[in-house]
Each structure stands twice: as C-alpha cells, then as structure tokens.
C-alpha cells in the first residue's frame, strides 16, 4: 500500500483586495520530512503557512492532512504546530507556563504535565530558564522555548515561519543544526519557510521554490539545488544566468572553474574566507566564488553550466 502524504496542499489560491497572493499552490509533505519553502519577501510564504494552520482560509483549493480535508476545520482542531517568525511567546507567562500551555488546555494530569515539561526542557536545554519570563531570554533561548512549546503537544506536523531570521549569523547557523537534530529525535514532519538559501541547504529534505505566489519548482533537495528547472528558480538559488547560441544557461558562482578558455576582465575582486570576484566575460558579468586566485586576463571554465529549458 502506498503511504499517505502527511500533508497535501491542493491548488490553493488566495486573493487579498485585488492582489493574488497565492496562485494555485500545490505540494505535499511526507512523513518525517522537512520541506523548505524558499522565496523572497512578499512571495506568499507566510500566507501558505497561515492557510495550512487555518489562520486564513484559501479562496479555493484544499488542505489534506493524513488523508482528511481540513480546509474548513477550526485552527485549534487541526493539531498543527506553528513556530511564528516572531515566535508568539506568551509574555505574561513564564517559560514553564509557556511550555505547559498546550497540555494544560488539554486538561492533562498535573504530574504528566510536570514530567513532560521537565523532559522536553531537558531535551532542548532550557531547564534552567523555566521560571524566567520571555523578556529575560536571549534570542536563541526564545527559539528553543517556542520549539518546546510546540513539540510538547505532539503535533502531526510543525510549521516554521522564518524563526531564525532575527538571530545573528553565528547563532542562526548553530540553531539550524539544532532544529535538524530535534526533528530527527522527535521524528516530526516540518514545513519551514525562509528566504535564506543556507536554511534550505542545511534543513531541507525537499525544497519548493515560491515566486510571486506560485510554486516554480518542487522536489528533492539535491535536484532543486543542483539542477534548477527554470531561469527564475536558478536566479532565486543564486545562479549566474547567461545565453549563448540561442540557449540559456545557469552556473552557480562556486561552479566556475579557474583556468579555462573563457577570458575574463576582473571588475571587482575581494578576498574573504574564499575569493570573491565579479568578472566580465563574453557571456556577460558573472559572480565567482573560488579557493584560487584569479588574475586579470586569466581564463575560466563554464563547463559545469546547466542548460535551461
């Protein structure tokens, strides 16, 4: 028997005023999978999550969870966890009360609540903060509290709306691995929306590319990152785009090989952990990120370019 998808979003559309914010969006989420929806600001990422959670109702289409249509189901009856961009912690409650909230409203036994709070706060290393209020926590600690509060109720899946966007780059990087680790431990399915390619690279099992309310591409992470199907997808993933011989190509800056037939003029060059260049070639301007030093008049190879349809 073919296993059911954990969640299936079927052709949802949403219009606000005269603007189409979601256009016929469809994708699915498998059991224990992290699907990253990657798109620029204003592309409709949050609206997709809000539709799945029941915060807004799509004008058309349906949301199927575990084989059941939940499109018209009340938010509180969906059992879908949500970690909001600003986390949505309850600032009038301390950490322990925040984490226990979902169990309390399910009228669980007090001992069970205390045990589960202790268990999850140990697992997420927030046990020492239980009596603090959200305003006394650092950005990373708040993330963990939001995660703990969501995980404790055992949701069928979790929605994450750019929860790391307010963190500094160092903390963001460690939190990515932390989320990955937690997801493996708890075996939960996650839909994670972001504009940050690094989130997609580290967290995603599959990636959907969202642009102006439409899904441009959706598939396994390796395929999406290494073989973008369209120019727009390639652009969102940071590829250089160029045309030659009436055909369109894309090449990632890290795929440009120093030493090759294509002569370059260096427009700008900066050295960081890697060497970064903006070069001018017969195919136009290209970004290059490489371990090697590139000099004026050197050549590069574009043989790892992908041909676009």
């Amino acid at each position: 028997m073919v296993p059911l998808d954990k969640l299936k979003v079927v052709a949802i559309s949403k219009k606000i005023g005269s603007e189409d914010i979601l256009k016929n969006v469809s994708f699915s989420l498998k059991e224990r999978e992290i699907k990253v929806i990657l798109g620029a600001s204003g592309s409709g990422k949050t609206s997709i999550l809000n539709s799945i959670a029941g915060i807004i109702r799509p004008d058309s289409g349906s949301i199927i969870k575990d084989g059941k249509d939940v499109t018209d189901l009340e938010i509180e009856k969906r059992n879908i966890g949500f970690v909001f961009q600003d986390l949505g912690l309850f600032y009038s409650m301390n950490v322990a009360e925040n984490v226990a909230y979902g169990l309390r409203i399910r009228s669980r036994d007090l001992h069970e609540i205390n045990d589960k709070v202790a268990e999850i706060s140990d697992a997420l290393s927030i046990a020492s903060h239980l009596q603090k209020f959200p305003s006394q926590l650092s950005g990373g600690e708040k993330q963990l509290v939001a995660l703990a509060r969501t995980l404790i109720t055992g949701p069928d899946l979790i929605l994450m709306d750019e929860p790391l966007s307010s963190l500094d780059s160092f903390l963001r990087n460690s939190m990515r691995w932390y989320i990955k680790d937690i997801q493996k431990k708890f075996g939960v399915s996650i839909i994670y929306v972001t504009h940050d390619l690094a989130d997609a690279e580290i967290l995603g099992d599959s990636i959907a590319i969202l642009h102006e309310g439409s899904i441009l591409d959706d598939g396994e992470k390796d395929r999406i990152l290494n073989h973008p199907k369209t120019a727009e997808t390639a652009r969102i993933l940071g590829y250089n785009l160029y045309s030659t011989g009436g055909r369109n190509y894309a090449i990632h800056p890290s795929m440009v090989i120093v030493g090759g037939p294509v002569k370059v003029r260096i427009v700008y060059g900066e050295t960081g952990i890697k060497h970064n260049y903006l070069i001018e070639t017969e195919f136009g301007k290209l970004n290059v990120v490489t371990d090697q030093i590139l000099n004026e008049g050197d050549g590069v190879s574009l043989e790892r370019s992908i041909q676009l349809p």
Partner: protein
Amino acid sequence: MRARLGFSFALVAVYAISVVIAPLLYLAYYAAHSSTGSLLVEVLRLSLRQSVIQGTVSTIISFSIGLLFGLLLIIYNGRMKNVVISMLFVTYVMPGIVMAIGIISIFGYSSRLWEIIYGNVVYNAPMIAVLSFSTGNSTSVREIYSAKTLGAKDSEIITKFYLPNSLRGGALGAILTFILSFEGFSLPLIIGGPSYSTMEVMIYELKSILPTFSQIPFSSASLLGLLQVVILVVPLYVYLAIRSSARRNESNLPSPLTRYSRVALAGLVLFIVFVMIPFFGMFLKYPVWLLNVHSITARLQISLAVLISNTVLFSFASTFIAFMISIVIAVYRPTLRNQFLILLPLIFSPVTLALSYFLIYGEHIPTSLLIILIFTAVIIPLNLRMMIQSVGTILPSESNSSRTLGDSAIATFFKVQLPRIKWEMSTVLSLMFITVMGEFSSIVTVYTQSTETITIGIYNLLSLRDLRDTYNLTEIFLIVIFISSFIINHLGKSGAVGQT
C-alpha cells in the same frame, strides 16, 4: 471556519438590532405620530439654534486652546509630564453635573451663555490637548534633527513638523467636542435655564415635564431625538472614520526643543489652573466637613446610603455587563469588515437613548433594570473601541500560537490576551465606571424615586436651591468616585503581571 463567520455575524446582528435598530424604529414610530404644530416648530427652531451656537463656539475655542496646550505638552520634556497629562484627563472624566455645580460655585446663578461655553471649554480643551499631544508627539525625532541639520529654525520645526501631526488628533477632538457640546445637557439645563435649552434638554423636558405635548405621549420628544440623530450622524461618521492612532516614538535621541521646556511648563500650569477652577471653587467655598447627612436625607426624602448604593450598584452592574459583551464582540470582531456597526450606539445621545429604551422596555422591566440597560449601552462603544485598540497592540502570533496549540478563541482571549492588556483594561474599567457613576442626562429621563442616584440627588437639591447640601453631596460624590475607581483599578492590576 465558515460557521465561525456566521456566528460572528449573528452576534453582531443581535447586538445591532437590540441596541440600535429597534430603538431607532421605535423613535421613528413615535415621531411619526407627533403633531407638527407651530409651537413644536418654534421649540425645535430655538433648541436647534442653541445646540448649533453652543456646539460651534465651544468647538472653536476649545480647539484653539487645546491645540496650543497640546503643542506645549510636546515641547515640555520634564518629569511632571505624566502628572500634567493625568490632571488634564481628570477634568475630562468628571461628570458634567459636577462641572455645572463647580461653575455655579464660582459665578453663582446667572444664566449666561458664556458660562455654558466656559464649562464646555474647560471640559473639552484638555481632551483636545491630550489628543493633539498624542499624535504630535509621534513626529519622528530623526526627521526633526535632519531638518535642523539642514538649517530649520525652531519655529519651523513646530509649524512644519509638530503642528501638522498635532492637527490630526486636534481635529478628532474638535469633532468630538462639537458632538458633545451640540448634545450638551447638564450645563445648559443647570446653569443655562430655558433660554439656553439645547435639543438634548428639550428632549428631556418634552419627555419628563411635558409628555403629553402631542396627542400621543412622548411623540414630540421622539421627533426631536430622531432629528438629533440625523444631524449628528455625519460628524459622528467622520469622527469614527478618522484614524488617529499615534505611532510610538522609539528614538532615544533627546527632545529637539528642550530649551523651551520651562516656558512650556509655566503655560501648562496656567492651563491646569484654568480648567481646575470650578472643582477647587466648591471645595473651598463649602468644605466637605460641613456635611450634614440629616439635612440631605430630609430634603431628598431618601437616605444617603440608598443614593450611594443605587449609584454603585447600577454602575457596577452595567460596567460588568458592558465589559463581558465587549469581550465577546472583540474576540469575534476580526471577521468583521466594518467597525462602524459596533460603534453605532454612539449615534444616540444619552437622553435619546434613554427615551428610546424607555419606549421599548419601560413598561416591561423594572426601572432599575432599565437604567442598567441604558448605562450599558452608553458605555459599550467606548469600552469596545478601547478594548479593540488594546488587543491590536499585541502581536497576532501570540493568540495564533494559542489557537494552534488547541485553545478556543474566547479562552485565548482570557488566557493570553487579557493578561497582556490588563493595565489598559483596568484603566478602561475605571473610566467606564466613572462615566456611568456620573451619568445624569439619561437617568434623569427615566428615574423613579426608589432608583435615585447621587447625580439625581445633587440635581434635586439644586432645584430646591439648597446650595450647601448640593456642594457637600457633590464632594461626597467625588470622593465615592475616587474610592470606587481606585478599587476597580487596583483589582484589575492585581496578580502576577509578568514581564513585558
């Protein structure tokens, strides 16, 4: 989700029909049966004229004074700022009858138009000043420093930056002043006399003193009430349509006009003295320790304890009911496109509201219940508006988190949202409580002897020309207001506040 939309709509529909539409229909029915004789036309003409004059003149003067002192509030940047704002606020929440008694304590019984105008200005200018300040103060300090680096003088900073922003709040206050002065009741009734009766006063007199002015009782009063609703619906719509929400100025930069702070404070102190004169007047003239309870009881034929308990009971019951109704509507409101429906009861002046409710429910329920119902309808719009604004300051993700974790909308309100706005709600509750305690115009239209409140007692003592007892009872009233609102405010803020 669709069922929830339907439920929200049903809630608002029941609310609109019972609180606004049915009373309006009753008013229209009775008004249609009034005899349009020349006497009624003359009554209408004279009262309309007074309403327009008092409304217009009071608005112009209040706006000019209020805007000026709103700007001084922006410029003043010292420790006393919150004290000054609180004192200005106190005058605004004082009952109209107290203002009228205060003015009589200074000027005596003289029945002059300018005294009514003075009362209106003292009552409304502080509100305009605070509103002008709140929108003017949201001017970006960074913008001002940018202008200064480009060479702008201080006078240009005020006229080009602060003034335009202050005008938004000031205009809102001016419209409200016009509405409140147009439907002025306590001042024209108590210190104006028959020559200065506004439409509101005439509605009361046609209902309570001359109910059989037309063939069908109360029909002339209903006609005036309906006309007043029609006249005020436009300014009211404008008032509701103006968005005056002020941005919070988050900049840590120092105030750009600090050097004028002392001058501004001097001006503000003068303003406070100007608006506080009526209140200080009576306390100085008739100190509260000269209170003679037996004299008041003998005069009114009702004990002081009954007056106080009636006042507190009606106020508490209506505040509680209005608060609960507001919660239900505020929780389900986000599905509504138009807040105008919720705020519709504002189109009724208190006397018109009392008259229409009297016509519908007067014969079917006890007067005490009728009074509670009227008080509730008087304060619901204010409460709802402030509650919705307070809830709007909380990030939606907090309530959405609670919902996604499995809680219902109403439970989310009590567990997540209310604790976050309990300080604001305590203030709103106190305000509502003070408003209904001081409510005079509606209750004087429907009361019976057993349902007399302190404001009615004050009015009756004044009618008997017993000035000493009038002032002493007013002072007792102010003390009761202070203690009750303090208790409500304190109760609302008790318990773990949490960290914000």
